[in-house]
C-alpha cells in the first residue's frame, strides 16, 4: 500500500511539475516574453470608456425613472442637460483618441 501511495504521489508531483513548466516547454525561446499591460494612454482611454458607459447608463436610467414618475418633469429637465453634455464630451474625447491612434498607426507604416 505504501509503495502504491508513493508511486501515485510521485506521479501526481511529476504531472504538476510538467504542467507548471508547460509555458517554458512550449516556448523555450520566445521572441517576446513581456507581459502586456495597459500604458498611460490606454488607461486614460479605459477611464473615458467607463465614463462614457456610466453617463449613458445614467441617462437611460433617468429617462426610465422619468417615465415611471419617480422624477418630476422639472427635475428631469434640470438633470438631463448636464448628463447629455457629459456624454457628448466623453464621446468627443474618445473619438479624438481613436483618430490620433489611427494616425500613429498610419505614420508607423
Amino acid at each position, binding site marked *: 500500500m505504501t509503495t502504491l501511495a508513493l508511486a*501515485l504521489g510521485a506521479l*501526481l508531483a511529476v504531472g504538476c511539475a510538467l504542467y507548471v513548466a508547460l*509555458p517554458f516547454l512550449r516556448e523555450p525561446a520566445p521572441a517576446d516574453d513581456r507581459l502586456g499591460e495597459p500604458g498611460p494612454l490606454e*488607461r486614460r482611454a479605459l477611464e473615458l470608456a467607463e465614463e462614457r458607459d456610466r453617463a449613458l447608463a445614467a441617462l437611460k436610467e433617468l429617462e*426610465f425613472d422619468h417615465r415611471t414618475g419617480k422624477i*418630476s418633469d422639472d*427635475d428631469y429637465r434640470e438633470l438631463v442637460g448636464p448628463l447629455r453634455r457629459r456624454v457628448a464630451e466623453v464621446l468627443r474625447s474618445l473619438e479624438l483618441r481613436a483618430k490620433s491612434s489611427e494616425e500613429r498607426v498610419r505614420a508607423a507604416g
Partner: protein
Amino acid sequence: MPELGRAALILCLGLAVYALAAGAYAAATRRRRLARSAQNALLAAFGASAAAAAVLLAALLRNDFSFKYVAEHTSLELPTPYTISAFWSGQEGSLLLWLLILTGFGAAAVALGRRAGWDLLAWVVPVLGLVTTFFAFMLVVVSSPFDTQLAPADGAGLNPSLQNPYMMIHPPFLYLGYVGLTIPFAFAMGALLARRTDELWIVTTRRWTLFAWTALGIGQLLGAHWAYVEVGWGGYYAWDPVENAALMPWLAATAFLHSVMIQEKRGMLKVWNMLLVVLAFCLALFGTFLTRSGIVSSIHSFTQSPLGPWFLGFICLVTAGSLALVISRLPILRAKTRMESLVSREATFLYNNLLLVALCLTILWGVAFPILSEAVRGEQITVSAPYYNFFLRIFGLPLLLLMGIGPLVAWRRASLRSLGRSFAWPAGIAVAVGLVLLALGAGSSWVGLVAYTFSAFVLGSIGYEFVRGTRARRALAGDSWPAAFAELIARNRRRYGGYVVHAAIVLLAIGVVGSSAYDKVREQKLRPGQTMAIGDYRLTYRALVNRQGPNATEYRALVDVRRGGSSLGTISSGKNEYRAEQQQSNEVGIRSDHLTGEDLFVITDQINTDQSVVFKVLVKPLVNLIWLSGFIFLAGSLIALWPSAAEQRRLAARYRELRALARA
C-alpha cells in the same frame, strides 16, 4: 493511503509557494511565461488538494480507523451520510475543505480570467498564492488530517448534534461563502498592486461577491434551522460567537454590494469599497479562527487546538498589509466626482453602508471583548443577547426603513415634490398597517409594532416599484402586463433581483419579530394522561415509548394536541442516547401551521423514571416566514446573478476597444 494524502498536501503547499513567489516576481518584472507558469501552479494546486480530499473521503467511507481523524469522528454504527459529513465535522477536515474550495475557486478565477484576457490576473495570482500557502501550511505542519495510529476496533463516533441532515449542507455553504470572499479580496489587492483604478476588478468579481454572499446567507439560515430543530432550546439564533462570526462578513459584504454600485454609477467611494472588501475577507478569516481555534466557548466551536496563534498572526498580517497597500494608493483612488445631494439614491446607500458597518463592528466588539478581557485582565466576561438585541434595534430598524426609502429616491438628487409623490402610497400602506396592528393588540411590543410598520412600508415601496416599472415598460413597448413585467426584470436583473432579496429580508424580519416579541412559553411536569394549556392549544401527554435506532436508543413522549375542540394530531418529542458517543441529545417535536406560519414547539426537558416528563412548550408565531425567506432570498440572488447579455456585450466592447488601442 495516508502517505498519498500527506504527499498531495506537501505538493499543494509547494505549488502555492511557487504561485506566490514566481507570480509576484513575474508581475513585478512583467515576465509573461513565468506569470503563466504561476497561474498553472494555482490550477495544479487544485488537483493536489482534490487528491488529498479524495484520500480522506476514501478513508472515511472505508472506516479506516488507522487515520486518527476517522477514528475520532466516526464509528462503525454511524450512518453513511454522516460518515461523509464527518469530513468537515472536525478541525483538520474543515481546513482541508477550506483548502479544496479555495484552490477550486482560485483555479476557476484563473481559467475565467485567462479566457477573458484580464491582464490584472498577473497580480491576482500571488495574492491567491499567499492565502493558499497559509492554509496548505496549516494542514502540512500544524493540523494534518493524515496522522495515523494503530487502528482501534471502533471509532469514537460523531457528536450527536452533528448527526442531522442540515450538517450535510450547512457547513459547506458557509465555507463557500467564507472562501468565496477571497476572490474579490485577491482582485482588489491585485488592482492596487498593479496601480489600477479602473473598474476591471469590480466587473470581474461582481458575481463572485454575490455568489459568496448568497452562500453565506443561505448557510446561516440553514444553520439557524439546524439550531431550531436539533439543539432543542426553542430558538434559532443565540448571538453565539460562532454564529456572529458568519454574520459579520455577511454584513460587510452586504455593505460592499451596495456601495460598489455607487462606484460603478458615479465613480465614487473607491477607497471605501477597498476597505469593505478587506474587512469582509478579514472577518471571514476571523470566523474560521473563532470556529476552529477553540478560543471561545460555543456550541459550534467543537475543538481546542493549536491553530489560534497561527490564524491570529495571519489575520494581523493580511489586515496590516492590505491597509498599508490601500494607504499607499490613496492618491490614485481619490474620486473625481462628488455627491450632489444628501437626498439621493447614492446618499441612502451611504447611510445604509454606515449602519451596516456600525452593526458589524458592534457585533465584532461583542465577540472580541470577552477574548480581550480574558487575555488582558484574566477575567471571564460574557457579552450576551441583550447587548446584541439593543444594537440590532438601534441599527436594524433604520436599516429596514432605508430598504423602503432607497428604491423610491432617484440617483443624483430628488426634489420634495417627486419624493412626496413616490412616498404617498407606501407610506399610506405602512400607516394603515400600523394602525390595524395597534388595534389588534400588537402594541404589546413597540419594537414589533415599529418593525411591522416599517416592513409594510418596504413591501409597499417594492410593490410600487414593480408596478410603476411594469406600467412604464408596457407604455414603451405595448406589451401585455406579464410580458412587460418579465421584460422589466430581464432589462435590469441586479435592481429587481435586489428588490426580491429586500422582500426576503423583510419576511425574515417579520418572522424574527413575530417569533421573539410575540412568542409564548410554558413549562410543566406531566404524568401520562395529564393535560397542559398554552395559548389556544391543549396538550395531553399520552405515553412514553422507546425504540432502538441505527446508533441510538430513542425515547419519545407522545403528546396529543387539540385547538378549539378539534384534534391537530400527535407530537412526539424526546431524547436520543447514542451508544458509541455515550452522549444524549434533545429531539424536539414541532407542529407547523403552514397557513399562519406559527409553530407549536415541544421540548422534553426531563424524563423521569416514573414516566413523568417535564415539558417546555413554546408557541412561535410567524417563525416559518424565516425559512420561507430563504427561498425568496435565493430566488432574488439568482435573478441578480444571472448574466445579462446586453451588459456582457457592452463590457466586451469596452475591453475590445482598449485592446485594439494597446495594439495600435
